[in-house]
């Protein structure tokens, strides 16, 4: 009885100990097993499914800037309106949509990805506004002065970093007989 309890206790301590070591590695974003390819796949998978590989650097080490996507919707008559992906959303949904926009920054050197993201957002806007003929995507970053600069009179402003116009392709019916 005592022997089986000791075995169970040792097993539990080992499992819990290994898991908490994983948590420590996740928190520090270290992956010392990275050089062992086969084992690292298994360990990484465990880290992902348990959440043990999570980092906790929220707002750390710095609070960055903000990116916003503005869409200029123009219909066939030339009438245009400016909208955003977050219009009319509640706070929780809006935060997530803004996270999607932040993906533009995730790989700044990957121009293909950036263009694909802009095209994807424009596609969404074409679906939301069926009468639109074109969608212009404008990305802007928020320039916030420091507290000292603000006191001296500098004010925050949006600075454009990207602009692309997407036009709706109208599928024409090919008249084979003609």
């Amino acid at each position: 009885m005592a022997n089986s309890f000791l075995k169970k206790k040792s097993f539990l301590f080992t499992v819990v100990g290994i898991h908490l070591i994983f948590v420590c590695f996740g928190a520090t974003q270290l992956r010392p097993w990275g050089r062992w390819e086969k084992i690292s796949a298994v360990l990484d998978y465990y880290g992902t499914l348990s959440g043990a590989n999570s980092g906790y650097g929220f707002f750390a080490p710095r609070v960055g800037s903000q990116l916003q996507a503005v869409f200029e919707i123009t219909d066939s008559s030339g009438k245009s309106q400016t909208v955003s992906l977050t219009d009319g959303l509640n706070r929780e949904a809006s935060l997530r949509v803004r996270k999607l926009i932040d993906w533009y920054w995730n790989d700044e050197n990957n121009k293909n990805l950036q263009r694909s993201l802009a095209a994807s957002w424009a596609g969404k806007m074409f679906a939301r506004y069926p009468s639109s003929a074109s969608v212009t995507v404008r990305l802007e970053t928020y320039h916030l002065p420091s507290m000292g600069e603000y006191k001296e009179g500098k004010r925050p402003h949006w600075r454009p970093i990207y602009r692309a116009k997407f036009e709706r392709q109208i599928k024409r019916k090919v008249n084979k007989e003609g």
Partner: protein
Amino acid sequence: MNHRFRNLAANRLISFFELFFLAPASARPLAILRVLLSVVLIMQALFLSSQLMDLLGPMGIIQGPLSQYLNDPNLPTLSSVNRILSHFGIVESQTIFLTAGLYFLSLLLLLAGYQTRAASVSTWLFHWILFNTGHCAKYGVDTFAHIALFYLIFMPVGKTLSLDAFFSQKPDAPSAMARLSLRVLQVHLCIAYLASGIEKASGPQWWNGDAIWRALMLPIYSQFDMSWLASYSFLAKLGCWTTLVVEIGYAIFIWPRKTRKLWIFLTLGLHLGIALFLGLEIFSLVMCVLTFSAFGVSAKENSCFQKASSPPPTSNLPKSASISLVNSGLASDTLL
């Protein structure tokens, strides 16, 4: 003599670990974690329900192939679920609603504590699938929800405050498993806060007050006009330093009884401040739930379903181990 001293020290250390990790505890804090976490995640699900297709759908904000390119191909996503369900004539949009619906149902079962273990597994699984699919839109709340849901699978969270406990009429007898579960959660939270605090402290923004200034002024988080802070920069600096003290100090001051209440109060205050001033309500609620249930609920209390004539608490520890705990002169809840 030296050898005997070493043996004595080793025995005391082992006893300490046994007492710390295995001294019988009530499952009440874990049950409260289950209930409160379910309530917050149900609220989140309701907030996101109207945007399900935009966030997860193939014609959403991140469309079809791009979404697949950005997702990890080794993790289960709605696309992989749909590959299976498509054999039954179910299309992708139906898969999304089905998965989200099952996730919501699992959360309700988890809240009620009905078939708790199965509900924990399904909640964790569906949350993981949805979280992997929408990982481009994830933020801190999803990380902590995923961690907590994974723990709920193994923890005795249905032993009390649940329909399972009500139907079985078994008392919430203190157990070593409940104590071990609680300790894992507590240690994990300490690691998370410590890592977060240290990483913040490594940047100059958290020393000169700029981090709070920026967080309060960025349109994504800004809830009030806080521009007046520029004239009182010492307040921003104070806010940053207080955050560092609370987060780094969490791993130390949450343990001793004398400082525990103060640290719970400071941590909850920090998160309520984040909810109020940065508008991160769901994230803050999840963090409050974790700290409150891990450290704010006594593991000594009896379950509300426990009968008045219930037997005295029984331990899973064998007699010899229990004697060694008693001999160490430390009782479970006077330890810290």
